[in-house]
């Protein structure tokens, strides 16, 4: 990594198949011009081996994982989706880049960055730098709550009210409405993993109790991720009539990628080309 890298100490993988050798080399050159060094990982998959298996064992210390997708390599798309989810669970930022004409528009819910035009390298570098500064746990809790409220507004939630701090005991932190007739009351619990804890099974039980009581909907917003046990408990409560949803760390980061102005307002280093040195 050169000394003038905007992302010192970060490990960035650029993964591609043989069909996309040329594009991968071009992307690597474009990123290097911005001072971002990448580790090239040409996945030579043996017959019978899956991409997901290859990536699970090959990716050791990645912070950002850039995946090149083209029409020629699109037969692997199911494996890529699995791999992206597995890497998400390890806290790795996954960036899918499509060579035009794009074979896919999204990868398991993640928007795909189309690598076309003279500014393609710059846009990709901006995206990688944005991912590097999206350390939501570094935000003071009140600021994270404000960020969550602004993101919810972008996605159609209205009249967001912050409850008094003592209202935390009620099992939620924000109230909002959703729907064209304001007919849905949403109770939102906001958890910053390092600031005020995680979304545990008990938190889900508490919020489920409140929303079932009030006939409201519930939303759990967290910088972290739920364990599989907590997800099963959530599913059971939903089967019993509670209407609970989760916005976890990976989903929040995808929302911030789609709303970079919100990221810039709340995350001090999120201006393009200004990642911390």
């Amino acid at each position: 990594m050169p000394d003038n890298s905007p992302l010192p100490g970060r490990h960035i993988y650029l993964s591609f198949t043989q069909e996309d050798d040329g594009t991968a080399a071009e992307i690597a050159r474009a990123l290097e011009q911005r001072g971002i060094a990448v580790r090239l990982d040409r996945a030579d998959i043996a017959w019978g081996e899956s991409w997901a298996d290859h990536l699970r064992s090959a990716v050791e210390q990645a912070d950002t994982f850039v995946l090149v997708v083209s029409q020629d390599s699109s037969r692997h798309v199911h494996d890529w989706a699995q791999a992206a989810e597995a890497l998400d669970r390890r806290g790795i930022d996954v960036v899918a880049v499509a060579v035009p004409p794009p074979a896919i528009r999204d990868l398991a819910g993640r928007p795909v960055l189309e690598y076309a035009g003279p500014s393609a390298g710059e846009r990709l570098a901006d995206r990688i730098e944005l991912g590097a500064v999206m350390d939501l746990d570094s935000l003071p809790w009140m600021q994270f709550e404000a960020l969550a409220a602004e993101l919810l507004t972008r996605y159609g939630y209205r009249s967001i009210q912050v409850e008094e701090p003592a209202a935390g005991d009620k099992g939620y932190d924000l109230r909002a409405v959703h729907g064209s007739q304001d007919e849905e009351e949403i109770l939102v619990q906001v958890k910053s993993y390092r600031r005020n804890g995680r979304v545990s099974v008990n938190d889900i039980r508490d919020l489920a109790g409140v929303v079932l009581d009030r006939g409201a909907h519930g939303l759990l917003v967290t910088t972290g991720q739920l364990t599989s046990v907590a997800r099963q408990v959530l599913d059971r409560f939903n089967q019993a009539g509670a209407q609970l949803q989760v916005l976890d760390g990976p989903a929040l980061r995808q929302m911030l990628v789609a709303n970079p102005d919100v990221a810039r307002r709340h995350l001090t280093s999120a201006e393009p080309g200004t990642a911390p040195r």
Partner: protein
Amino acid sequence: MTAALTSNDLRRQLDSCPPGEGGWTEFERVGIRTLAHLFVPPLQSPLIQPRTLAGAERRDAVFPNRQRDPGSNWGFLHADHGARMILTEFKNYDKSDIGPEEVAETSGHLRRSWGRLALICCSKKPTASAYRRRNTIYSEEKKLILFVTTADLREMLDIKDRGEDPSDFILDSIEDFYLQHD
């Protein structure tokens, strides 16, 4: 000096461990390494195959828990379950099932002075009767026996890799047990 194992090394070792009798020693070895990678510290290094004074009983592994801050996960488990020593047993079955006998055996190995928490690490999900036996043991003796599959071990490696605390999984499993306990 041997380099410390990474999460990926352990994933590969878990993947390559054959289920069944031929792989039971390896399963136990890899399982202990994985739990140590996940939980030591804050737990102490495991005592492997400790026997009772008379030598009659042999347990697979025991992790001493000296955490006393109830704000930490292991401190909370000490306060709530008296979990001073975390008994861990390994069942690498392929053809036969992990049933009530295995649960009763683990319960029998859990001494009062150690506390009331044990883990059974298994390569496959236990039977429904194993879960029922576990519930009975909790009702009668307040001993809590958690099943930890290899998929759970992999999930805890992911949790550790993303900088969170893998023992969150243990706490969620316990809270889920309470929710479902008859």
